[in-house]
């Protein structure tokens, strides 16, 4: 082979290598059972009672993996089961042993999020899917309609059965979510860091309690450059500048219907603290995908009686 041909062949092989090995996939083995993999077959058989089973009530909230069976003893026309997981988990729901009569008006619908008083969490603007794709109706799609995976740590199941003895089993499984966005907190106390990696999306962390929120070391992408100090800019409208953090308060779960209590447009190395005296307090991170945005914060319970002398934040509700 001539020298030039060999050189070209070598260059070709080197360029092939450049295609391989640049993956950002996070490989997760869904079958990994953690400590269960250490058990032998006998022990695994005995561990069958680790699987949680209990009856499902007409109005229920589920926070554990397991199998929940609903059997109607009388017509139940308005039932719902809320499912909630940890902030860094998503929920996989599966319907099994379904015995309902779709033609008689029975239905089972799985919703990707929560609906409360007509308001949806996450809001339409914050959820990646359009509204009609967030519903999975068992009756209209019998085979494929039996499973659903949520996009965030909350999901819910609406169901209605007319005939006594009708019912179904709901299998709840929680899966790890490495980049959580749109989180409903189970507790008013705790700390969390919300990260939006290079994406144009808005994420919200919702706490259905009046809380005191402390933001620490906020890292935002491409803030507006001017020489006004942080203190004065905290309370002005940030909608013109790239990434920012909003603190919202309201009496519903839809973040688009809530009132902004404060905006933060600038990266923060100190502490920003805010008391929100509303039924629902939300930390919302708005990202324009310029760089990664990270917002660590902590929340604490706050009731208006605990600090009588302190300045109180009055919650503006939707009452006009």
């Amino acid at each position, binding site marked *: 082979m001539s020298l030039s041909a060999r050189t070209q062949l070598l260059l070709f092989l080197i360029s092939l290598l450049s295609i391989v090995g640049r993956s950002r996939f996070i490989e997760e083995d869904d079958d990994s059972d953690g400590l269960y993999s250490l058990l032998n077959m006998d022990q695994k058989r005995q561990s069958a009672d680790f699987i949680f089973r209990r009856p499902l009530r007409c109005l229920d909230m589920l926070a554990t993996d397991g199998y929940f069976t609903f059997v109607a003893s009388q017509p139940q026309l308005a039932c719902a089961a809320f499912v909630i997981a940890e902030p860094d988990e998503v929920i996989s729901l599966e319907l099994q042993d379904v015995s309902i009569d779709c033609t008689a008006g029975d239905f089972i619908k799985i919703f990707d999020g929560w609906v409360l008083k007509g308001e949806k969490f996450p809001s339409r603007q914050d959820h990646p899917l359009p509204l009609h794709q967030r519903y999975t109706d068992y009756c209209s799609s019998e085979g494929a309609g039996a499973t659903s995976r949520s996009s965030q740590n909350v999901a819910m199941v609406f169901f209605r059965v007319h005939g006594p003895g009708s019912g179904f089993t709901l299998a709840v499984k929680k899966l790890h979510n490495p980049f959580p966005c749109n989180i409903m907190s189970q507790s008013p106390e705790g700390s969390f860091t919300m990260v939006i990696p290079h994406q144009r999306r808005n994420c919200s962390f919702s706490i259905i309690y009046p809380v005191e929120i402390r933001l620490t070391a906020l890292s935002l992408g491409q803030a507006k450059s001017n020489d006004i100090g942080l203190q004065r800019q905290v309370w002005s409208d940030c909608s013109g500048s790239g990434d920012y953090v909003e603190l919202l308060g309201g009496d519903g779960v839809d973040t688009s219907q809530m009132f902004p209590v404060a905006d933060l447009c600038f990266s923060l190395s100190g502490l920003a603290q805010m008391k929100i005296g509303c039924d629902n307090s939300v930390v919302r991170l708005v990202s324009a995908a310029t760089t990664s945005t990270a917002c660590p914060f902590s929340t604490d319970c706050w009731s208006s009686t605990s600090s009588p002398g302190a300045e109180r934040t009055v919650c503006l509700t*939707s009452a006009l």
Partner: protein
Amino acid sequence: MKLKLFGTTVILLVAFLPRFECRAIESPGGALRLPAPQLQNSGPILERLGEEYFIRLGNGDSNSLPSSSLYPGASPAIYSRALQQLQLTRRLLQGKVGNIRALLSGFGDHGEESMERGRRSEDPPISLDLTFHLLREMMEMSKAEQLVQQAQNNRRMMELFGK
């Protein structure tokens, strides 16, 4: 010469081929979701809402309205009409058809009788009318259940490993 040119072109093409966008999260076995039936067009829904609007006009409203003194400087007749419309719009937005009484007697089987769900058509939206207080109670109960279950699992795991 031509062969060299061809070779160089192939090498450049291979080196700069457009690659698949790497995504941080991939869910190959993800949600097997079929799209729900399309929402009806806005015409029939508005008509239906209109009927409900008029049906509700005569009903008393349990929610209190702010006084018209919040909007100084215009005629009272306009305000009463505007307030009425706001009131009805607000109730419609809350998605109610019938009684809105959340669980007063607390969580449990009592809730099934007093709970009412607003539902406009076979298609979404479906909504549940719960107070935040009740939702918080339910969340605390589910958290307690989760902790109990975790403790039981831990105990069983320790027993299993001990064998």
